[in-house]
């Protein structure tokens, strides 16, 4: 009797969750459907494409810099992620495992920068970038993110958990400090590294405010900036089918990657959220 009641309850929860799933997933379905419509389907409303039209995809690959934006985003996100993994973990390791005069000041100095909103820094960065000729370069897009205080804090938290014994053992064996960090400490915090890598990559892949400021020509845009400016630039009405092709091509590969690494990504984001 009681079991039956619980089963009925579960059915209701499933119905409720499925209804939510449909609402949450609808924009993605609509995006894909719209990318296959021809432009006339937008002005005479039709739910499904009247005839499946792939020409939008052909157009964005051949007539726009779309692939170039893709490439730019990959270059920027991968480079910044690698830089963050190396530097953040190195600094986190030193702060967690070395005692030296000034350690506390260094830690506070780095941590205090977490309170500065990016919005406040973009103007000085832009002035700096113009002075040094970094506008419209990869370096210009990347330099503000190469080392990151939150990542340092996160890595320090995890490095604290690495036992001193194994580090000392390595020292007694005559291993250099750099090698100890690389060969002994880093393998101990692999889950934290993968979490940090994921959030850094996602953040840079989706970044918009800074790349829109520092890039100036069409072929230096990152993917979000390229899509945004392509969509707003056209005075002769919004080309919805092309924009939806671009959005689909930007979103679907991310979703596929997410499906493959779902467990790791979800756990990584939860981990950084909870530890931070």
């Amino acid at each position: 009797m009681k079991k039956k009641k619980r089963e009925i309850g579960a059915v209701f929860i499933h119905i409720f969750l499925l209804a939510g799933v449909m609402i949450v997933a609808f924009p993605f379905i609509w995006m894909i459907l719209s990318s296959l419509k021809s432009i006339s389907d937008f002005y005479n409303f039709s739910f499904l494409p009247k005839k499946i039209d792939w020409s939008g995809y052909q157009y964005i690959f051949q007539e726009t810099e779309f692939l170039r934006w893709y490439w730019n985003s990959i270059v920027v996100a991968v480079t910044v992620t690698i830089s963050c993994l190396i530097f953040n973990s190195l600094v986190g390791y030193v702060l967690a495992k070395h005692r030296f005069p000034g350690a506390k000041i260094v830690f506070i100095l780095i941590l205090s920068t977490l309170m500065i909103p990016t919005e406040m820094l973009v103007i000085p960065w832009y002035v700096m970038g113009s002075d040094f000729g970094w506008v419209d370069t990869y370096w210009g897009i990347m330099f503000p993110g190469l080392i990151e205080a939150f990542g340092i804090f996160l890595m320090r938290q995890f490095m604290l958990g690495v036992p001193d014994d194994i580090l000392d053992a390595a020292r007694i064996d005559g291993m250099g400090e750099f090698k100890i960090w690389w060969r002994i400490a880093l393998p101990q915090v692999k889950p934290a590294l993968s979490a940090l890598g994921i959030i850094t990559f996602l953040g840079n892949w989706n970044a918009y405010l800074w790349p829109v400021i520092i890039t100036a020509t069409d072929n230096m845009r990152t993917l979000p900036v390229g899509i945004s400016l392509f969509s707003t630039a056209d005075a002769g009405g919004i080309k919805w089918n092309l924009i939806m092709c671009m959005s689909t091509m930007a979103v679907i590969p991310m979703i596929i990657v997410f499906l493959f690494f779902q467990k790791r990504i979800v756990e990584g984001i939860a981990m950084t959220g909870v530890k931070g």
Partner: protein
Amino acid sequence: MTNVSSNRQPMKLQTRRTLTAYTFLIVPLLFFISIRIFPTLYAFSLSFMTQDHTSGTIDNYKQLLQDPVFWKSVLNTGLYVIVTVPLQMALGLIIALGIQRVRHFRWFYRMIYFLPYITSIVAVSWVWRLMYDQNTGVFNQILTWLHIPPQGFLGDPNESLLSVSAVMIWQAMGFSMLIFMAGLEAVPKHFYEAAQIDGASKWKMFWKITFPLLNPTIVFLAVTGVIQSLQSFTQIQNLTGGSAANAGGPLNSTLSIVVYMYKNAFTDFNMEYASAITVVLFIIILLVTLIQLRILNKSYEY
């Protein structure tokens, strides 16, 4: 630190260790000083300068106080916080509780609800913009089928802020769900068993056990949510900006502090005035952070 102590060696070792530490830290330290600290000071000093940089002034702040558009952007930003943060947290909690109750398809639900969070804000903002479109959008089409008059959505100053907020909630609620799921996992099972023996109802168990134990999670999500929505920019820029329309429109009804800053700095190139705006934003965020530290210290004492 090894404590094998001959007289001179530990001293030497300590110096060497210090040197090693600073060798590792030198590049990051220079980075933080030149890319974070110095620009912060520069932003402050810029906000106290005239546009030709010939003299110091507090005119930027005076102008700010009298600028109705700025105050509108502050008001709107406050509205974004009030509308999005509680809703995205409540929805995230409800979904997390739902998923916790079911045995099958958990990974599927978690995956779908979390998807919006990892997808590009720009790309999905344009999808929403298409759906919101007054003439060709799917929402108005559905309303017509239901015999409800079509709405203006992003085009109507009374509805635009809520329309933008809906997109923000849609994207952020998956994150809340995820963090709440982790929080719920951490609640010890025997608490519920004990309560069940005492004959407590489900409702009572939620309010007396689950909710108080989720307190740190709630504070964390509230603070990160507030700070994030104080910085609202990308959605607004992409949902409302364009060649025919000004970002933040119609009639500044969706204008946030950051959108207004961007407009001043990079459309009108008044970097000094824009810096003053960012200083105000900085102070607001600082206050929120301080309040957070206060509450956090309290809430862990259960």
